[in-house]
């Protein structure tokens, strides 16, 4: 196949073949980062705007470094410093950005679908860096890339996503991507954060930690946000840790070679103990390394084709 999309909005939109195409492209970009000269001229002369309406550190830094390694020119915009604060609409803001002849907008926004909306109105490419609880495609791609790198395939693997599924775009994007590639997906956590409704799209829902991890090839943990406690989703973080936290005892229940993943930032001793986060099953830092390769691949592909 050949790549023909100008935007990356959600893994839901992509075919299994397209997802695999991005992963294969990312493999070559991973090698670029291992060379002495880590920069390639592919996006020379292209301008990328990183428009983060919702704050982000790691995703923004990863995108920014990916853009630099591809030789793009970069403009960083944050909501606090943009005219959104003065009452300008989102569409007007991005149209103004486009009028400066930029080639690509990487956007994070708290409203689900914000990127889909602007992509319909812009000629330049749009990459979704996270929209509300809807979608975070590059995070899911880097998770799936890491799993594939470690296991050689995705099809047939048992992947458990554990934590606050309800509020998580990472969980949703992983779910779509993994299902398309043929994995068996289990969503696990407290019943308040893992509604049964998810079963209708072909995943298993599980509220018991032991059951959720015992047959898993991969356990992908999500960060537990402290503010969820005050909204009553669980009584306390220590209680969450006791029932759903991953510690050395839970690791013993898993397959010996199970991968433990986390999109970061981790809350040590809430969803994961330090021994496990820094232990042999953890691939958390490899996920960060792979994130760079995956984002280089995505930027390269969406910036690389013109729309007919």
């Amino acid at each position, binding site marked *: 196949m*050949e790549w023909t999309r100008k935007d990356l909005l959600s893994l839901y939109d992509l075919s299994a073949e397209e997802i695999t195409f991005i992963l294969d492209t990312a493999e*070559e970009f991973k090698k670029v980062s291992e060379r002495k*000269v880590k920069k*390639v001229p*592919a996006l*020379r002369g292209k301008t990328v705007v990183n428009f983060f309406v919702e704050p982000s550190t790691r995703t923004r830094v990863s995108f920014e470094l990916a853009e630099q390694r591809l030789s793009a020119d970069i403009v960083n915009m944050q909501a606090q410093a943009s005219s959104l604060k003065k009452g300008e609409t989102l569409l007007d803001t991005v149209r103004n950005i486009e009028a400066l002849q930029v080639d690509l907008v990487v956007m994070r926004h708290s409203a689900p679908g914000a990127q889909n909306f602007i992509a319909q109105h812009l000629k330049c490419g749009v990459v979704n860096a996270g929209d509300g609880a809807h979608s975070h495609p590059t995070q899911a791609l880097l998770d799936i890339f890491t799993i594939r790198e470690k296991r050689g395939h995705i099809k047939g693997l048992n992947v458990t996503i554990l934590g606050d599924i309800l509020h998580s775009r990472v969980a949703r994007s992983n779910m779509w991507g993994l299902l398309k590639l043929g994995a068996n997906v289990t969503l696990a956590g407290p019943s308040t954060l893992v509604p049964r409704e998810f079963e209708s799209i072909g995943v298993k829902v599980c509220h018991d930690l032991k059951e959720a991890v015992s047959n898993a090839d991969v356990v992908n943990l999500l960060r537990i946000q402290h503010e969820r406690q005050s909204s009553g989703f669980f009584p306390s973080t220590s209680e969450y840790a006791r029932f759903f936290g991953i510690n050395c005892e839970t690791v013993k229940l898993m397959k010996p070679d199970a991968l433990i993943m986390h999109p970061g930032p981790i809350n040590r001793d809430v969803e994961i103990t330090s021994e496990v986060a820094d232990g042999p099953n953890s691939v958390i830092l490899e996920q960060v390394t792979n994130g760079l390769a995956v984002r280089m691949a995505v930027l390269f592909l969406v*910036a690389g*084709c013109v729309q007919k």
Partner: protein
Amino acid sequence: MTLRKRLHTPEEIAGAIEQMANAILKDCRSVNCQDYAFVGIYQQGVPLAERLCDAIERLTKTRPPMAKLDISLYRDDFGQRSALPLIRETIIPFDVNEMRIILVDDVLSTGRTIRAALDALTDYGRPDVIRLAVLVDRRNPEFPIRADYVGFDCNPPADHKIAVRFDAEDPIENGIFEVEWE
């Protein structure tokens, strides 16, 4: 496709590769160079480089090192195509520093591919010398790039394509072809 004419047979190609290998060896010996290697540019430069290595191995009993180079990240038409093919794996199993490199492609046309390949290759280090070997030279460069070792010259109309095939199952499909697309 309205026209597809075979210009050279596999036997003629084998003869040309033998001659190119001899010329490359002669030049290496004349400068007393032991550290030389082949770099094939995807797609068809790779099988051609393999054949040149085969020929050198027959002549010297030792096989020179060979690399495979993808130039997707170095093209000068990035963002101008409607679809992107998959990047192929660049494999350089030797240190390019201080090497004598024979860059290999099937057809030298505009010279743009070679320009990209030079940039890609020099990102891996600083070779002593880079030479260019091509099976077919179309003699219509857009860049000031010339080949050092040439199998065949040809000069078809500008809108005709020169296609080289090495490994088709049906031997009649192998050879150097002039193709006109409608």
